[in-house]
């Protein structure tokens, strides 16, 4: 009996020893592999071969390929639109598109980082819907493939100057513009007579109705956007130029952002839940608006209110508006990871999504309501007709009402704002 027990203990010891060895070996191997990968990437980073081929050849090459398209899956409107586009892709181009519905684009960035760390050349992502910080992360880690945008036939009709910079970072043709977004606000006409068309007016509403105003918590996408919008609005117009270049010094940052922190110090105690909780994102804030817990919400999809009212997600009393001085606008993109195994089909798919037909369907507020990246005026007449026939739904924003969007500050401002916000308000 005793020997048996001892043998068991020995075995347990050996087992633990074995797993330790395994642990050591394993922690070493991926790092070695990743170093090798980095060397490879450096060597072969010149113009990608595929992008220099004739489009017909690429399309031929793509036939029969199956691609994994990583795109946020939180909106049924988006999902349904992508389902119908995937059907078109199968029928016309013979490619199968699998929409991988992700909850947060950071998950896909994480996957790409892991694949790189493991030294894999054959990744699991062919196309990714992306912009801003996530694109910057991929570009810095050299995880995107390209440049490819100019090779796409449909890029001929792109709006001029669109997609050169993504949140202040040069895109270098590494991501193709897919849609235009502009920050809009919404309010409940049953509760407020007129919407607060500036940050100061928003503070007035908060004073008048404590607990009914809030904004998504930074560093969430919309939360940081709110900070930037407020920063720009609270600055004198002539000073705003500094935001286009990187943060020069801590002193400059402190001086430029001082009005923003004063504003937030005044706003926070008057916010929903005394500012102890903030919505996780614009979506959660819209749900609170629908239940009248908060009275203002924001979104980056200009036709979101029209779409949501039609779907019954928002009550019919909600109307969109924007601030008098204009609001931030940006573009969202499609990119191909460097490790994408089916790049030809990825190019064909992106080209299809940039076609006038697909863009017009996307701009339809009853389907999605995302603004096109194409210059409609330059399109051939029969393709232009699809845009002109788009329905006007109650709650939509006209291009005139949107005006010219404000441009995004340099990314270094974003980082500094997020860090300072956390330092001030997270203790």
């Amino acid at each position, binding site marked *: 009996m005793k020997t048996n027990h001892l043998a068991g203990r020995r075995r347990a010891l050996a087992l633990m020893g074995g797993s330790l060895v395994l642990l050591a070996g394993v922690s070493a191997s991926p790092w070695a592999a990743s170093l090798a990968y980095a060397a490879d990437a450096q060597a072969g980073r010149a113009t990608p071969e595929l992008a220099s081929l004739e489009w017909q050849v690429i399309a031929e090459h793509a036939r029969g390929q199956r691609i994994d398209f990583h795109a946020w899956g939180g909106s049924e409107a988006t999902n349904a639109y992508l389902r119908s586009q995937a059907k078109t892709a199968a029928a016309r181009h013979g490619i199968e598109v699998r929409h991988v519905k992700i909850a947060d684009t950071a998950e896909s960035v994480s996957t790409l980082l892991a694949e790189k760390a493991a030294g894999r050349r054959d990744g699991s992502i062919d196309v990714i819907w992306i912009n801003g910080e996530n694109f910057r992360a991929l570009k810095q880690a050299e995880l995107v493939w390209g440049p490819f945008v100019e090779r796409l036939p449909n890029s001929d009709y792109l709006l001029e100057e669109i997609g050169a910079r993504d949140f202040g970072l040069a895109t270098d043709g590494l991501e193709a513009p897919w849609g235009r977004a502009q920050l809009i606000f919404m309010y409940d006409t049953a509760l407020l007579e007129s919407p607060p068309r500036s940050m100061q007016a928003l503070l007035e509403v908060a004073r008048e109705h404590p607990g009914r105003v809030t904004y998504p918590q930074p560093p969430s996408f919309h939360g940081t956007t709110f900070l930037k919008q407020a920063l720009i609005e609270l600055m004198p117009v002539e000073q705003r130029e500094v935001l286009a270049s990187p943060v020069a010094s801590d002193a400059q940052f402190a001086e430029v952002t001082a009005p923003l922190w004063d504003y937030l110090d005044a706003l926070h105690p008057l916010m929903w839940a005394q500012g102890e909780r903030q919505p996780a994102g614009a979506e959660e804030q819209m749900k609170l608006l629908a239940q009248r817990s908060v009275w203002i919400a924001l979104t980056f999809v200009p036709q979101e209110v029209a779409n949501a009212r039609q779907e019954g997600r928002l009550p019919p009393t909600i109307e969109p508006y924007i601030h008098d001085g204009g609001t931030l606008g940006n573009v969202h993109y499609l990119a191909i990871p460097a490790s994408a195994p089916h790049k030809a089909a990825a190019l064909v798919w992106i080209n299809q999504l940039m076609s006038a037909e697909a863009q017009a369907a996307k701009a339809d507020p009853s389907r999605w309501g995302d603004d096109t990246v194409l210059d409609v005026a330059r399109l051939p007449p029969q393709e232009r007709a699809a845009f002109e026939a788009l329905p006007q739904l109650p709650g939509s924003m006209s291009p005139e009402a949107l005006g010219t969007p404000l441009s995004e500050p340099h990314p270094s401002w974003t980082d500094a704002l997020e860090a300072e916000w956390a330092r001030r308000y997270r*203790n």
Partner: protein
Amino acid sequence: MGATLSQLTQWVADRWRVAPATGHAPLTPARVLRWGVLLLLLGPTALGLAGLVAPAFGLWPTLGFEEVSAVAWQRWWALPGLAEGFRLTLVSGLGGTLLAVLLTMGWVSAAAGTRFGERMERLLAPILAMPHLALALGLLWLAAPSGVLMRLLLAPFEVLVPPQYPLPDAHGISLAVGLALKEAPFLMLMAQTALSRLPVTAQLQAGQALGYSIPQLRWRILMPQVMRAIALPIGAVLAYSLAVVDVAQVLGPTRTPTLAVRLIELWRDSDPTARLPASVGALMLALLVIGMMALGATLGRALLAWHRGWVLSHHPERASRLALASEAMFGRVARGVLGVVTLISLLAFVVIGVQSVARSWFFPALLPSRWGWESWQQALAGLGDAFSNSLWLALLVATLAVILSVAVFERERESGRLRGFVVCLYLPLLLPQASFLFGFQVGWLSLGASPGWAGVVIGHLLFALPYAWLTLAGPWARFDTRLEQAARLLGRSRLEVLIGIRLRLMLRPLAISWAVAFAVSIAQYVPTVVLGGGRVPTLTTETLALATGADPRLTAVAACLQACLPLVVYLLARAVPAGRSVSPTRG
């Protein structure tokens, strides 16, 4: 050091030389299989741990961190609001577990085995099957200022806007309550399984013959036995409550969140180097969990010892009127509390159901103003694959988990104790999922494997196996081994005894353990996404993506869909006849 090393090599060499002579066949198929299984289980854990430890000490070559440094620790401790995060984690995690344990004790002392208890158990089955996130949302839709309860209260008045009160609160109390409501049914199920293995009737009859009342006997005799049997499940609940993310995001404070939420934020930061402090945080959280579990175990043992002393030294006056009245009073209060808890949980479930078939339902309407199945149609249009994937995955994972658990128990019996092994089994429960799985993912991909089914099955197994194991451990240890000894003496082989006697008599605990593993597999999100590379869509991945959107109706549909499979399985498992504790004489 040198001496120990040479001793070790000597020992290994001796072993190898001696092995064939003494009949320790070095490489029999059974042995290879055994080591294969162990590697399958420990490999991912080791990989995950490596992927956590290396960045915590500043190693991440892909991001340009190539030397061991303390940079990750400095960045972690420099994070604002950490102390508050620790406090919140402790309040919600310990509070939630304590509350769940108290509810379970109330159930054992006043409801188990009674008709009330049975009815309650039946009503709580949906809560058991519902994913944590779904119940949290249901509770929020019920109790928030714009929630259904408030609408009911305000119905007689003309109110345009919801009132304001802090729910969820800033101190982690609503989070603790939400966790307790979800975990209590799980602990009650475990207690129920433990009770079904105890000779309850015989013990109660013996006690009554000695003049004790039934409530007294429940407190004095049954309670300590049940609590000892469900110690492991309580540990799992504690670990889960301290490390939970999704529920904490819904019911916890967000300005300064719990540690686990903070880790996920760092993990999802667009700056990949934020993962260095996240890895340190993950280790800190794991240490906190281990510390709290050790504390809980010590405390539990002390309480049981105190209870024993109390039982032995206090003999209540038989049939004293006052004692009887206070017992009855206690029973009524406990049943009342349990009734309210059941009612709240069920209401949360109903609210989710109503939300899923509502077209428009805005404050202050008590019921939806328009109804319709559109949300269900929309959701189902894209969920064909996801449903079958979830089903097959869960079937496979649950079956493997139960078989492996049985193998582990058998092995434990054969070779004494394998404490180290059990710790490894538990590690996946202790470490925050996102950071732990990243290491596994990197290692898995380095081995040349592609993201897909195989990785997902292993990933699910990592989390389902500990649950299968711990739900089975109590009943397994309390099995009357004399039955098996008798069968062995009658010349049956070990396998025949295992299948014919033990597994047959333990059918109910096996079924419950299978159902728990099934539910755990269904609810996995991070492993499915990380190891499947998005190629294995399941109900949970699809519905969690939908839940991030602005449509509560789709979120509700998602919750129902996620709950339906485990619910069916739990109901089936409950229908399996309880292998009664057969006394040897009767066999």
